C-alpha cells in the first residue's frame, strides 16, 4: 500500500507504548466525533422526527376526536329528528283534536246565532205586522169617521153614496200610499 506522506517507517502491529498513545489519540478522536455527530446530526434529526411524529399523532388524535364529536352530533341530531317527528305527530294530533273541538263549538255557536237572528227577525216581523195592523185600524177608523161625517152632512143618494164610497176608497188608497 502506497503512503501519501513522507514516512520514516511503517508498522502493522506493535504492542508497545506507542500503541497505547495511539489508542489514546483514537479514543479522543472517537469521543470528539461522536459528540459532534450527536450534537449536530443525530439529536436534531431525531428531535425533528419525534416532533413530526408527535404532531402526526396529535393530528390523528384530533381527527379521531373530531370524528367522535361529529358522530355524537349526528346521533344527537338523529335523535332530535326522531323526537321532532314524534313531536310533529303529537302537535298535529293535538291541533286536529283542538280544531275538531273548535269546529263543533263554532258550528254550535253559529247555529245558536242563526237561531237568535231568526227569532229576532220573526219577532220584528210580528211587531211590524202589529204596527201595520194598528195603523190600518186607525186609518179605517178615520175613514169611517169621514164617511160618517159626510153621511151626517149630506143626504145621500145611491149614486152619491156609491161615488162617495169610491172617493173614500180612492182617498184611502192615497193615504196608504202616502204612508
Amino acid at each position, binding site marked *: 500500500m502506497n503512503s501519501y506522506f513522507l514516512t520514516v517507517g511503517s508498522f502493522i502491529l506493535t504492542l508497545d507504548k506507542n500503541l497505547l498513545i*495511539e*489508542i489514546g489519540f483514537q479514543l479522543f*478522536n472517537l469521543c470528539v*466525533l461522536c459528540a459532534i455527530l450527536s450534537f449536530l*446530526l443525530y*439529536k436534531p434529526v431525531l428531535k425533528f422526527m419525534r416532533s413530526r411524529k408527535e404532531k402526526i399523532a396529535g393530528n390523528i388524535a384530533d381527527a379521531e376526536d373530531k370524528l367522535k364529536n361529529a358522530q355524537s352530533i349526528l346521533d344527537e341530531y338523529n335523535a332530535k329528528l326522531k323526537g321532532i317527528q314524534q313531536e310533529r305527530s303529537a302537535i298535529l294530533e293535538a291541533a286536529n283534536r283542538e280544531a275538531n273541538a273548535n269546529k263543533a263549538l263554532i258550528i254550535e255557536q253559529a247555529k245558536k246565532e242563526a237561531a237568535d237572528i231568526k227569532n229576532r227577525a220573526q219577532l220584528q216581523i210580528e211587531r211590524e205586522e202589529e204596527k201595520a195592523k194598528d195603523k190600518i185600524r186607525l186609518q179605517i177608523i178615520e175613514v169611517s169617521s169621514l164617511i160618517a161625517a159626510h153621511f151626517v152632512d149630506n143626504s145621500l143618494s145611491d149614486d152619491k153614496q156609491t161615488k162617495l164610497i169610491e172617493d173614500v176608497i180612492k182617498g184611502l188608497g192615497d193615504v196608504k200610499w202616502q204612508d
Partner: protein
Amino acid sequence: MDFGSSFIPVQIGGFSFRLTETIMDTWVVMAVLIILAIVVRIKLNKFTEVPESGFQNFIETIVESMDSFVEGNMGKKFKYFGNWFFGVFAFILLSNLSGLLGFRPPTADLATTAALALTTFVLIHFMGIFTAGKGYFKGYLEPIPFLLPLNIISELATPVSLSFRLFGNILGGSIIMGLIYTLPVIVKLLVPAVLHIYFDVFAGFLQTFIFVMLSMAFIGDKIPEEY
C-alpha cells in the same frame, strides 16, 4: 511490499509519539463526517414534514434505523445510547469504505479498533455497575466462586475479540487488495473492482454491523430485565 501504517515520529517537549497514517486518515474520515453533520444541521431547517429530497430521506432513514436498532437491542430506556453508536457506526463504516478511495482504512490499525473496543468494554461494566450496583461484582463468583478467574478472562476477552475481529478483517482485505495491485495490468482491469466490492463494501458493512451489534448485545446483557 509494505502493508503497514506509515508514520512520522513527533516530539513535543519531552513527549514523543508516532503521527501515523491511521491518525491522519481518521482525521479525514472525521472531517467528512463533521462536514456532513454541519450540512445536515444547516439543511434541517429546510426539512419538510413529508420528505421531498433524497438527502432528507437518506438522513432520516439512517437516524431512524439506528434509533430503532438501539431500542430493539437495548430497550426503550437506553435509547440514548444511539447517540454513541450512531457515531461509532458512521466512523467504522466510513473508515472501512475509505479503502475504495486508496486510503489505508483506520480500522486496519489495532489502535483504532482497540480504542473502539475499549469504549465498549467501559460501557459494558459501567452499565453493569450502574444497573446492578454492588451486586454486579457478585456475578463474577457465579455459578461457583472457583470460576472467578475464568469469568474475568471471559470479560477481558470481549474487547480483545471485538478489536481483533475488526482489525483482522479489514487489515486482511487491505493486504489482499495490495497484493492484487501487484499483479499484471491485464488482471488489474477487472479483478480489483470486484474484490473492492467484497472487501471494502460488503465486508466493510458486515464488520461495522457486527461490531455495533455485538457491542449493543454485550452492554444490553449487563442490563437486568427489570429495566
